[in-house]
C-alpha cells in the first residue's frame, strides 16, 4: 500500500477540490476542451524539465512510494498525474475565487 502513496496523495488533491467544481460552479472539469488546451504548454515544458532532472539526478522518486511504472525516458507515471492534478487544483481555486468575488461585487 505504501507504493501507492504518491498516487493517493494526488487522489486526495482531486477529491478535496471536487466541491469547488460541484458546489462553487468553478466549471473547470466541465470545460474539457479549454482545460486540455490550457494544460498542454506547461505540461510539455515541465515534463521535459522533469525528464532532464530525473536523468541528471537532480531529483528522483522513491521506489518505496511509487508504483514503479515508468514512461519512456524513465519518468514515473505519478509525475504525469502530478502535472495534470496540480494545475487543475490551481484553476479550480482561481475560478472559485473569481465566482465568489463576482458574487460579492454584485450584491
Amino acid at each position, binding site marked *: 500500500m505504501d507504493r501507492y502513496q504518491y498516487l493517493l496523495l494526488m487522489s486526495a*488533491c482531486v477529491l478535496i477540490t471536487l466541491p469547488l467544481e460541484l458546489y462553487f460552479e468553478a466549471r473547470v472539469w*466541465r470545460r474539457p*476542451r479549454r482545460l486540455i488546451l490550457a*494544460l*498542454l504548454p506547461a505540461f510539455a515544458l515541465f515534463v521535459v524539465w522533469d525528464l532532464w532532472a530525473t536523468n541528471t*539526478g537532480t*531529483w528522483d522518486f522513491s521506489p518505496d512510494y511509487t508504483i514503479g511504472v515508468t514512461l519512456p525516458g524513465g519518468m514515473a507515471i505519478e509525475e504525469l498525474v502530478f502535472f495534470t492534478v496540480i494545475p487543475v487544483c490551481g484553476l479550480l481555486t*482561481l475560478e472559485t475565487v473569481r465566482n465568489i*468575488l463576482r458574487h460579492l461585487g454584485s450584491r
Partner: protein
Amino acid sequence: MPIYPTLAVSAAIVVIVVELCVLRSGLFREPAYWISMAICYAFMIPVDGWLTKLSAPIVIYRPEDTSGIYPIWDIPLEEYAYAFALLTAVMLTWDRVGASLARRSVREDVPA
C-alpha cells in the same frame, strides 16, 4: 547557484516576462489571482511537505543541486518559485484559451 534554484527562479521570471510583455492579460492586477495563489501555497505546504519530508521522501533531491534552504519542513525554498511558475503559467493559458474559444464562439458552457 545550484541548478534547481537557478532553473526554478528562471522559470518564474520567464512566466512574469511572458505575461507582462506578450500576453498582457492583466492577471497580475486581478485580486482573485493573488488570493488564489495564497490559497494554493497554503495547500502546497501539506502536499509538498509530504512529498519531500526527509524522514520518508517520495521525491528525493540531490542535496548539492538544491539551495539547502528549508523555510517550512523539508520543502526547498526554490519549490515555491517552481509552484509559482507552474500554476501561473497554467492560469495564463487557461484565460488565453478561454478568450480565444469565446472569440470563435466555441461554447462548452451549458447555460447555468
